[in-house]
């Protein structure tokens, strides 16, 4: 071993675990032969002894207790803030979910009550201010049954009867003809009655009838007012 190598690894050969046994033996042998390196090692040992005194001097020192106190206080503050923030986020998400749920339920309920509402809107009546519609009874359409089998659907005002037949948007609402002497305002709250009659019977409402076809059976929608009297008439399709 040369002096340069000894200076690099020989001074701490006893502690350096990365050195091999051969290197340690070589450094000891070199120190025994070289007086300069032996003096260097002694000098370092003396310095190390002084370092160890300094190390002992500060061996038992610790951070002051106030550091721990400050850190614990900060820890509580940090985690209290974190928990509060987490609670707020959870609450906000819960509220948003509840709002979405309520909206969805409302939408479903509304659609159950208004099938096909998204298809069309009810057109304004032409001959009278009628705002209600019924679906024509398809079972009786074209049949020859008398009036007592007529399908009667009621719809009063803006309210929907829970047990009534399903209402649909019916563009056949138009076509009611006010009977003579009836004002349009009188037809606002009426009932629609579907009947089968001979065409000639329309004459009794004051309507003109073609004499040649007076014997024909026709299906007629009558708009009956609150007083039980027909207000308007419409030939059913």
């Amino acid at each position, binding site marked *: 071993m040369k002096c340069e190598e000894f200076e690099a*690894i020989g001074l701490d050969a006893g502690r350096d675990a*990365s050195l091999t046994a051969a290197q340690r033996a070589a450094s000891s042998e070199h120190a025994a032969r070289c007086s300069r390196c032996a003096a260097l090692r002694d000098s*370092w040992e003396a310095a190390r002894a*002084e*370092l160890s005194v300094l*190390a002992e001097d500060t061996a038992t*020192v610790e951070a002051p207790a106030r550091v*721990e106190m400050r*850190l614990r206080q900060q*820890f509580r503050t940090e985690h209290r803030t974190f928990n509060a923030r987490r609670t707020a986020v959870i609450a906000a998400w819960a509220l948003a979910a509840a709002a979405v749920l309520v909206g969805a339920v409302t939408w479903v309920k509304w659609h159950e009550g208004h099938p096909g509402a998204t298809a069309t809107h009810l057109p304004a009546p032409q001959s009278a201010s009628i705002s209600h519609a019924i679906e024509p009874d398809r079972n009786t359409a074209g049949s020859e049954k008398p009036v007592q089998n007529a399908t009667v659907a009621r719809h009063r005002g803006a309210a929907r009867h829970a047990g009534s037949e399903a209402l649909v948007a019916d563009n056949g609402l138009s076509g009611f003809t006010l009977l003579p002497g009836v004002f349009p305002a009188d037809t606002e709250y009426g009932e629609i009655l579907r009947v089968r009659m001979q065409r000639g019977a329309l004459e009794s409402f004051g309507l003109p009838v073609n004499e040649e076809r007076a014997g024909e059976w026709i299906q007629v929608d009558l708009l009956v007012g609150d007083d039980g009297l027909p207000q308007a008439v419409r030939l059913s399709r």
Partner: protein
Amino acid sequence: MSIADQDRDDLLLRRAGKGDEEAFTHLYRRHQAALYRFALRMTGSAWAAEEIVQDVFMTLMRDPKKYDATRGTLGGFLYGVTRNRVLKHLERRPREISLEEKNEDGTGSGVILMEPSTPATQAEKRERVEQVRSAVLDLPAEFREAIVLCEFEEQSYEEAAQIIGCPIGTIRSRLHRGRALLMARLEMLREPRPRMSAAK
């Protein structure tokens, strides 16, 4: 749930991350002394060492995920963070010596020696300790940290290399150069001072 001494650091850290103050306190008590001593020996200032230790644990408290258990021990990680803080401190205020720790003659750290002895020997020993402390603080930071870790903290070369983040050969080289500087400085301090009366 109580905390046993043998509880692993990473488990304690996980619990601390979930808000367990007891776990955090236990971690602090387990590591603070070594970190404080390292910072004190590197900076020579009790005030700076206190600030650094507090800063290190504040970092651990706010971002515990910075520690990766697969890359080493928590102690090594904390040493590394402390070292970075120390180097920043040294860059800002090189060779800072806390004034309130000085004795009237400009020496002394305020640290009380534990060994009972006569006032004369105590004073002599304290003076010598201060000379050594001064010599260590005069070393460049990279040599000083190698000396402090390997001689004062009694870390192995491997541990020191891991803390500093360099190969073992670099540690050995820095120790070699640091020792040479330190021995020269101590030798100079050992020489008898010329008496003022003799000069007159």
